[in-house]
């Protein structure tokens, strides 16, 4: 609590201690959302920068530094996904070429990746964290600052869109 109190008062040494304690957790969390190591490193710095700027608003009495950081990290990752969002075109079928099982599998994976990347950032984060990373719903809810039922709705909507996209691409999940 002493450390958090000093951080809330603007002590840079306390901030450094917190940075070293949490940088791996924050990086790992962001990486699970953005899926790119260099971007995750940049966003980890951005997260701690936002944390440092907001030190005066941190409630040291509550002491939930990890939860606060995860929320900031999620917002930074979401901002990044919104800035860099782009439609990834589905691969076209080459005409009259026999498909091996390996080719079909690769195309299926590509189609799923494209469909996930095509989701809106808020749906994508919920889908990736819930389905791929198997993060508990309450943990996702806390990180996004929404209710557990809202997370379930986002996952449900995301899966529905993914199924529709995959069906349109000729893949039948």
């Amino acid at each position: 609590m002493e450390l958090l109190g000093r951080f809330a008062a603007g002590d840079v040494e306390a901030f450094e201690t917190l940075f070293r304690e949490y940088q791996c957790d924050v990086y790992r969390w962001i990486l699970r959302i953005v899926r790119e190591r260099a971007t995750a490193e940049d966003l980890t710095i951005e997260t701690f920068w936002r944390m440092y700027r907001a030190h005066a608003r941190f409630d040291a009495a509550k002491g939930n530094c990890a939860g606060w950081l995860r929320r900031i990290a999620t917002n930074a990752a979401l901002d990044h996904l919104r800035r860099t969002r782009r439609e990834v075109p589905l691969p076209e079928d080459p005409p009259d070429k026999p498909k091996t099982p390996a080719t079909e599998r690769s195309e299926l994976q590509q189609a799923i990746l494209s469909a996930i990347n095509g989701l809106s950032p808020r749906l994508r984060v919920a889908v990736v964290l819930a389905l791929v990373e198997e993060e508990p719903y309450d943990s996702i809810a806390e990180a996004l600052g929404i209710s557990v039922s809202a997370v379930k709705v986002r996952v449900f909507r995301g899966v529905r869109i993914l199924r529709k996209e995959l069906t349109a691409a000729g893949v039948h999940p």
Partner: protein
Amino acid sequence: MSDREIEEMKKLAKEALPALRDAELGRDLWPAMVERLSTQRSGMPWWDWVLLAGASAGILFVPGVIPALLYHL
């Protein structure tokens, strides 16, 4: 949509995207953080300049606001 369909999609998604929960950070990011702190702390954001200019103009043209400002500080 049923739970089974969500489970099917989970299986497909996990095949396409590897889980990264055990990924490790390859380097210490503190030096980069220090650099960010030193570059960002030196510059004052533009809205702070606007506020400062507004407050200065207020004090200059309406000296009567000084007691009110002092009271709120």
